[in-house]
């Protein structure tokens, strides 16, 4: 870099540029929050869905699965699993996991959920499936 461009100029551009773009990011964040109610289906969130989200978290489902593409890539996407299996199919799958796993295959733990807990998990997954996420994933396979 030539001598005309000094360190103090670089410093000023750093502080100025960072401040400007952070403020722009805040403005976009604000705008996003005004638009989200139309997309995130918050009006439908029930205590049961909240319970389902908590179960999703405290069993660390994201440690193997993705949800709207975020998480681990060891097991299938679950944002649209309701489309693939249906309510009853999802419950039956979770319930039927053998405690010791399936020999040689990737296995999901047996969590011993109650019926209410299974209903809550399904309610949460249905809620996620209803969110307007710009048509992702590309197809039902997730």
């Amino acid at each position, binding site marked *: 870099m030539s001598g005309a*461009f000094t360190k103090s100029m670089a410093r000023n551009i750093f502080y100025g540029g960072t401040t400007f773009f952070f403020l722009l990011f805040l403005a976009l964040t604000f705008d996003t929050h005004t638009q989200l109610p139309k997309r995130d289906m918050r009006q439908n969130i029930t205590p049961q869905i909240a319970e389902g989200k908590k179960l999703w978290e405290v069993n660390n489902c994201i*440690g193997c699965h993705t949800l709207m593409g975020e998480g681990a890539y*060891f097991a299938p996407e679950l944002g649209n699993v309701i489309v693939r299996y249906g309510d009853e199919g999802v419950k039956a799958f979770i319930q039927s996991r053998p405690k010791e796993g399936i020999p040689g295959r990737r296995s999901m733990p047996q969590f011993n959920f109650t019926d209410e807990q299974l209903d809550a998990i399904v309610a949460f997954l249905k809620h996620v499936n209803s969110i307007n996420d710009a048509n992702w994933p590309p197809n039902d396979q997730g």
Partner: protein
Amino acid sequence: MQFKSQAVAKPYFIAAIGLFVGQILFGLILGLQYVLGDFLFPEIPFNVARMVHTNLLIVWLLFGFMGGAYYMIPEEAETDLFSPKLALLMFWIFLVAGALTIVGYLTVPYATLAAMTGNDLVETMGREFLEQPLPTKLGIVVVALAFLFNITMTVLKGKKTAIATVLLIGLWGLAVFFLFSFYNPVNVVLDKFWWWWTVHLWVEGVWELILGSFLAFVLIKTTGVDREVIEKWLYVIVTLTLISGIIGTGHHYFWIGTPEYWQWWGSVFSALEPIPFFGMTVFAFNMVNRRRREHPNKAAVLWALGTGVMAFLGAGVWGFLHTLAPVNYYTHGSQITAAHGHMAFYGAYAMVNLMMISYAMPILNGRAANSNKSQVVEMWSFWLMTIAMVFITLFLTAAGILQVWLQRVSDTPLPFMVAQEKIVLFYWMREWAGVVFLIGLILYIASFFIGGKEEAAK
């Protein structure tokens, strides 16, 4: 070393390397679980091993950042550390908290751990990378604040160089953005939106300031190039980092329920994110080419050049590969993401810490550089780990391309598990590359124990 208090960096560096070994061992377990699905099941299910792998990564990098700061700040500020005792106390608190957390992950089912540690009070657990129980999260805040207090007071009582200032901004940013990990609304879209304020603004924001500052410090020390020149470069690089990286957060807002304009903002700004990384590569090579002295620690210079190149490849090139929204629509949440994550974290943050440790450890042990023999082994470890990581990334990329094709693009999309079985060959090759990486890491540690005569300054 110039200041006695710099010595507190040593336990931080040792702990960092120890946890790094743990991270890699769990990485190998995960790699095996990808090919032998029931390996260690049900004792250590994949999600637990992954949590250990990623959390150890975060914690060892934080140990490295703190050790690096404790080493560097006294030299930059030209004054002893404000409180070496506080630094040592925080070291033990952080180490014990970290160890207990890992033991908790491995010995108790996660849901039980959550119940035991007060997750019902403030629900923060079970989100990727932020799985730590509440007491651990609070511990991180306490340790971070005490650490920041310590180094900020040191800078305030001493010289305020640009390198120290950039580091302080990076570290304060790290602490501030971690606070978003306590915000977990029941609305999953909001949850995901703010989760990125910790995760993205860390690794594609403020952490890059820490990276740039460490790199600038080691380049000044090893090349003897004028501070004015190096600091000017540093400012330019961190400017490019933040003007691209802050709004670049938008590349995570494509498919999580956020408005569709993020596909434009995120694509355009994150497409610029490789530029600061390219700047770092050019910076490192330029300064080394213009060096005014031959520093005896050649291994540290190699790490400095390496981190420039690998951060550009891993974070820059592999990030760009899948960051444009129309591409990301197909690659989102696939093995492509995993490929990028591995090389980016290794190239940017693992390597910069290894660079700092490589530069500082000999000095902390009372010599300018290790013996030639020791450095040769260290350079072998550099190449083994780096080439292994290149292959891990290539194999995961190949797996990812096939996965995306089989599962999302083809006319007859296959179910996830069917597609996984078809790409298992690449997972096997990734695992073998991981074994080579471990050998490299063992050599790295071995290099510290090879004695011999100190390499003389020329």
